[in-house]
């Protein structure tokens, strides 16, 4: 199957800091890929480069910004505008052919039709995050980049959001998301990419990460990640897999 998104040898330097080093991976249509790792690993930097928010210092991303939907960690919404007005604005800015139809479609998909006229500032955190993702989808992109989409949501809101995102993947979108919640990655992602200090240390299924860390298939992915990172720290010469 051909890749919906190809990231090749991407590096990013901020002054003295090397935020990303030679990161490469592919994502196929319908795949849900989680990027996990400790704080400062480079997850947000990687996602923002994939989304075209910032350019890489070197390397390439196969899709331009117009082909990648983007939902940043902090909902990027105008709180004084209504849900529909936010969607309509970005539909026009994305030069969507039929903005009105796109707004209707997103209201339907997010289940926010009943709150279309409500100002975003009055929505719950979960609903704001839905609108945030919906704005990323308004241009109907083949790839979606989500930076910590469930951060600051309560368990019920998280569950609803993941059902929504899983539905998007089933509909054929290639989705890359970063998360601190490793259990979410284990539960929803088909693949995990482990980043640490800007290096990609692992790219395979959650089950493979469990095996790599010596955990049983039904084991805890978070414990496996910690063990995996400790092993790598003690033998830094080991390459990515």
């Amino acid at each position, binding site marked *: 199957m051909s890749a919906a998104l190809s990231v090749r040898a991407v590096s990013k330097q901020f002054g003295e800091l090397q935020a990303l080093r030679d990161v490469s991976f592919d994502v196929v249509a319908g795949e849900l890929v989680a990027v996990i790792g400790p704080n400062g690993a480079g997850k947000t930097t990687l996602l923002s480069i994939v989304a*075209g928010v910032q350019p890489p210092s070197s390397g390439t991303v196969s899709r*331009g*910004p117009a082909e990648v939907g983007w939902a940043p960690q902090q909902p*990027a919404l*105008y*709180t*004084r*505008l209504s849900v529909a007005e936010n969607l309509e604005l*970005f539909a026009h*800015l994305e030069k969507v052919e039929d903005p009105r139809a796109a707004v209707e479609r997103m209201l339907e998909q997010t289940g926010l039709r009943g709150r279309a006229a409500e100002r975003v500032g009055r929505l719950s955190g979960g609903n704001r995050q839905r609108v945030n993702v919906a704005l990323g989808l308004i241009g109907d992109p083949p790839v979606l980049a989500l930076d910590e989409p469930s951060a600051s949501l309560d368990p019920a809101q998280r569950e609803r959001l993941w059902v929504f995102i899983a539905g998007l993947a089933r509909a054929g979108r290639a989705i890359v998301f970063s998360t601190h919640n490793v259990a979410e990655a284990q539960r929803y992602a088909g693949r995990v990419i482990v980043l640490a200090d800007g290096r990609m240390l692992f790219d395979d299924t959650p089950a493979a990460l469990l095996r790599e860390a010596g955990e049983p298939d039904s084991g805890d992915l978070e414990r496996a990640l910690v063990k995996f990172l400790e092993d790598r720290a003690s033998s830094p010469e080991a390459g990515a897999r």
Partner: protein
Amino acid sequence: MRWLLRKDLLILGRSRLLVALLIVYPVVIALLIGFAISRSPSRPRVAIVDETPPGATIQVGSERVSVGQYAQHLFSQVQPVRATTRAQAVSKVKSAEVLAAVVIPPDIAARVSSATRQAELEVIYNGDALEQAIVQSQINAALAQANLAFSEQIQRAAARAIDLLLRGGNLGALGAPGNLIGLEEIPPLLHRIIARTPAGADRASLERVATFAGFAAQNLNISKNVLATVGQPIRVRSTLLRGRRTPLNTFAVVVAVSVSLMFVCVLLAAGGLALEREEHALGRLVRGLVSRETLLAEKGLLAAGCSFAVAFAMLAGVGAFVTLDWSRVGLWLVALAFGALAFGALGVAIGALAREVRAASLLAFLLSLPLAFLALVPAGAVAHGFYDAIATVSFIFPFKASLQALDAAVNRASPSLGLSLLHLAGLAIAFGVLARVGLRRAE
């Protein structure tokens, strides 16, 4: 840009407090300035207690000058409020009914007539340092004018007395001889007598008297001019080097409108751009949906448009109180438009540095206030080096250039409007570039 503008107008329309401030602020400022200019007394309200006895006069040679005329001169320099006693005057000062009180003592006529003791007035005032400074300058100016007018009257009386001494004539009702000989007539009269007097001691004495009379007449004639010179030793002739004389009230209007233009524009532009960051929308916008240049231009133009409308409304509002030359309205609009664009560029440069609206507003306010203050410091009011520093700061920010452009458009003041517009255009470009660099660095 159309959709961004629409979005910002929607947000602006929903920020009721901000819109109310944008409308109310200039209206209030315009009304305050208008009332202050049109209703403020050009002459201070002063209580005057005239304790001199009715009909008191000052004797100047054979002439008499009424002391009441001094009070009349003083009345013409102030808005007089009559008080019958000193206590009443003090009460009026304490209650702030009047700015100050002047007490004309009963012995003023005797003191002036004595020519040995200087006459004194008592000035009573109250208030803080600022009020005291105002009283001192206004009352001193009023008293100086009254003193000058009164001294001219005394000079005229003295000159008439000298004329009488020189040329002789009727002294009138003082009981003096009816046909007094003048000092100038004495030498020719004596010379005629001397011609008929045989040589000897009498003739020599007469010749000495004739010589003295001639000398005295000559010097007394000069003393009239000396009196005029002493009364007003130096006269002032004013020469304005550049532009035309600008009335203070129309300049005050220009200052008020420029300040409003700056505050509204800089705050809106800085706040508008910072709002994109505060709502975390900047990253989403600049990833190919809107170029950074377009975003900056949109924020700057929106702020410039709003402040332009507000400033023009304010100028037109103040026009109800102050006479403005409406035939120059086209030039006002050009000056306001260039000023607004430069302030818009300054605003987005500030907004590019701030992460949230409150920080941007505070930064804009903290920068704008001293700029307005510095631009109004007149040359010569501070040390030379310090003024150079002030002039440099004023030159690199748009307030002074905007003030000069509007002053040129409204009052035909200098420097020329074209020069100020060129300056503003340069500043708009410079701050636009700074905003672009700042936006990139802040990301």
